[in-house]
């Protein structure tokens, strides 16, 4: 019997709020242990949790950006378990009344066809503390860092719609793009601001039963997620072939062994409505306010870029896939640069140079204004493409305007016909063989001659004019 995998994902994403979820402590990782704590997030006696509006807004924006419906009423529950990373014996989460339900994301399936993967629900919860295990002499000790305790999270639970590692990896890529667009979370699996657990079960292909699942945790990159699913599918398939039962439990991905390792039985603690945090009731007006804050998402932006700026589908996708690129692109176009010129120069010149120099749009000195200035000089034939590349390199190095750089370093293109005719005459006289070739129908001889003329002008000649003059003289 042939089997197929049924995969659902549970994704925890840390919201990039300024504070924790129930107190005013900074939400900042990497600080000295237990620096960002207070009586509330350490749950001292007498403290009262204070739900922050920022967490609600960022969680709602995230849910809306993932096409979910915000529920009119949602509430926090206590997920009860005892562990030193939990300062009060329960975690505040939304088990019974989640913030949002019924979302989806589209991915390209393995066959290249679009596939819609559904999201079951999105709820808010607080993160737990971090445990650090060390040795004190020969005694193992466990230290608790409460800086992360109470950091706002959203948990995104998908429907079991995925059938392959490809689906799961593409879903996470699409999710990351959407959320980064929204600007509500960094979504880095590597740094732990996004954690993905996969629930995997097997069934005979063609049936729609849902069998006992196994939960796999601890993947810290999209590639590891794919690898863990591949491993788990083959492990479970082997069990099925051998006639062994699949038991509900949790496994950890071990990147060294490249295998999943049994960790514990799956734990489902009780979830009790919390009597301290008030229920959250949202109005239509509030939802509309949130909708107005929702940025234009990449799918719709790509459509608009195609329509409004005449970009090809490929160009529109390239300019819209990331929010900062799309905003940069529009800032340049709004300064009267031809959209396709902007697209070409951003994709082929600006982004690679920024990558080389390890810069982001927030810290690059090449602002949209300076970059647009450069492209305007190019479009007006004041400089040619070669010169433009060199001016761009100088834009990264100095604060000067592109105009100043062009004048100071002599990049201005020579478009004076008399001057250029002189150069062409010299080139023709010096290269009789090439002239002959051209006249005998060897078309690429023209390219050679143009190159010679450009060289003679030290790269400053207007190549279009050179070509015209050459054509006329031959």
């Amino acid at each position, binding site marked *: 019997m042939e089997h197929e995998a049924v995969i659902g994902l549970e994704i925890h994403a840390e919201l990039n709020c300024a504070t924790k979820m129930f107190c005013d402590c900074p939400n900042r990782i990497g600080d000295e242990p237990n620096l960002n704590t207070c009586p509330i997030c350490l749950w001292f*006696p007498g403290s009262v949790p204070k739900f922050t509006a920022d967490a609600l807004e960022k969680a709602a924006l995230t849910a809306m950006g993932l096409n979910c419906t915000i529920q009119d009423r949602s509430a926090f529950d206590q997920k009860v378990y*005892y562990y030193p990373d939990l300062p009060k014996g329960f975690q505040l989460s939304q088990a019974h009344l989640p913030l949002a339900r019924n979302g989806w994301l589209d991915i390209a399936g393995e066959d290249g066809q679009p596939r819609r993967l559904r999201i079951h629900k999105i709820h808010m919860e607080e993160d737990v503390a971090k445990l650090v295990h060390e040795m004190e002499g020969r005694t193992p000790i466990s230290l608790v860092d409460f800086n992360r305790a109470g950091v706002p999270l959203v948990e995104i639970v998908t429907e079991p719609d995925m059938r392959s590692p490809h689906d799961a990896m593409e879903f996470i890529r699409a999710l990351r793009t959407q959320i980064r667009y929204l600007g509500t979370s960094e979504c880095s699996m590597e740094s732990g601001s996004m954690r993905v657990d996969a629930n995997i079960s097997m069934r005979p292909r063609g049936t729609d039963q849902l069998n006992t699942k196994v939960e796999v945790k601890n993947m810290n990159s999209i590639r590891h997620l794919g690898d863990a699913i591949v491993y788990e599918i083959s492990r479970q398939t082997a069990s099925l072939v051998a006639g062994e039962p699949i038991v509900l439990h949790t496994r950890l991905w071990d990147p060294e062994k490249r295998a999943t390792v049994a960790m514990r039985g799956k734990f489902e603690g009780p979830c*009790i409505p919390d*009597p301290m945090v008030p229920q959250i009731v949202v109005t239509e007006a509030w939802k509309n306010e949130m909708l107005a804050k929702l940025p234009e998402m990449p799918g719709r932006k790509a459509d608009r870029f195609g329509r409004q700026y005449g970009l090809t589908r490929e160009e529109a996708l390239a300019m819209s896939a990331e929010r900062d690129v799309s905003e940069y692109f529009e800032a340049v176009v709004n300064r009267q640069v031809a959209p396709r010129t902007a697209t070409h120069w951003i994709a082929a010149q600006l982004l690679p140079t920024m990558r080389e120099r390890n810069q982001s749009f927030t810290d690059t000195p090449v602002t949209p204004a300076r970059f647009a200035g450069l492209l305007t000089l190019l479009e007006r034939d004041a400089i040619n493409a070669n010169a433009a590349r060199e001016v761009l390199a100088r834009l990264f190095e100095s604060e000067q305007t592109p105009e100043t750089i062009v004048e100071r370093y002599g990049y201005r293109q020579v478009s004076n016909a008399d001057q250029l005719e002189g150069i062409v005459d010299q080139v023709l006289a010096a290269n009789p063989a090439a002239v002959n070739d051209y006249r005998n129908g060897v078309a690429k001889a023209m390219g050679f001659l143009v190159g010679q003329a450009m060289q003679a002008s030290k790269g400053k000649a207007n190549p279009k004019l050179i070509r015209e003059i050459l054509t006329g003289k031959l």
Partner: protein
Amino acid sequence: MQTDAFTYLDPSPSVWGHDSVMSPEQGPLAGKSLTIQPSLSVRGWPADAGSVALKGFVALEDATVIERLKKAGATLVGTSRMSELGLGLAGDTTGRILSEGRSDMALMTDMMGEARIIAARVGAFAFKPSNGTVSRFGLIGLAPSMECLGILARAPEDIVAVMGIMAGDDDRDFSMCGSEAPRFDHVTESDDSIKVIGFMKEPIETLSEAEVRAFRGCLDRLEKSGFRIREVSLPDYDLFRSVHHCIGAVEASSSCGKYDGVRYGHRTAAAKNWNDMYLKTRAESFGALVKAYLFQGAYFQFENYGAFENACRIRARLVKAINGLFAEVDALAFPTRSGSIREVSAEDMEGLYDDFVLTLPANVAGVPAVQIPGYCTDGNADYGLQIIGPRLSDGPLLSLAVRLSKMGT
């Protein structure tokens, strides 16, 4: 002088910190003394809530109500002895402190009627405000949805004055009721908005002959004073007790989760690993009654969640039913306590609930309740008159208490 009625006495009650806006001589509560429980946070005071779990714990900051009382110039005398985490009244000395005149007023956590019961025992007034009227920030509690700060005083006017200072929005407690909050600046004996007083027939059926006689006598007196008395019925009345027990235990189990010995409070001397540390610390932290309560709560959490959900549904139904009664009458009268009240043994859970059966409905429903002495009496026994009103009718209820106190006993 029996100093052991207090677990802590303020060494300098007339000298407040620099955060005090008014000196005690100037504030509206100048010259008024209050005793609190060690479950209400006063910066620098021990706050162990009567439990080994918090042995040696000193409050880091003032509770919101303490901040306001200090600013109003009240004198905080010290902390009374209390039962463990306020569950039951075993060992509580609040009544003694009041009847000995060592304090004009006392504040205590009212989870099932503690303030009203103690006041009835010593012939004092007590008030339990509506949920959401008084900030709970700084209150070390047990069952958040059931409890609030109760006030005991010999004179109802003192309760009005203290409520005027303590009540009102607090940006550190989001469960406050906001714009619809009751006001206390118009509480006077001339406020006669409560005209029709009802009484439920179901609790009467559980009373002894002497208790019924006292209560009937009390109702007659109220009728002669011009109130209309009406009998009403709430067939599910006996469910208040089960609902309180189930939900109270579950919430207590959750709120005691933080007593794990990791960050503060008692930690066991020796443990093999953290699991062992948890088990031993918690085993040493709680007394028998609290332990039984936490176990009962954990049972519903882990083994019988459905029963807890039913309790929540029944609670909603009870609130609806009692609101329905408030459409017929302005307030409801009960005796505060039954005559059989005794010092419960520390293990007796059912005995504990027996003692509070007449007061806990107000905690389940989150409505205000006031205890008035001198009306529900039989010979030497004063069972106390307890009157409860609709949620947020705190003002009219206190007006009624002032009025009845003026009518004389």
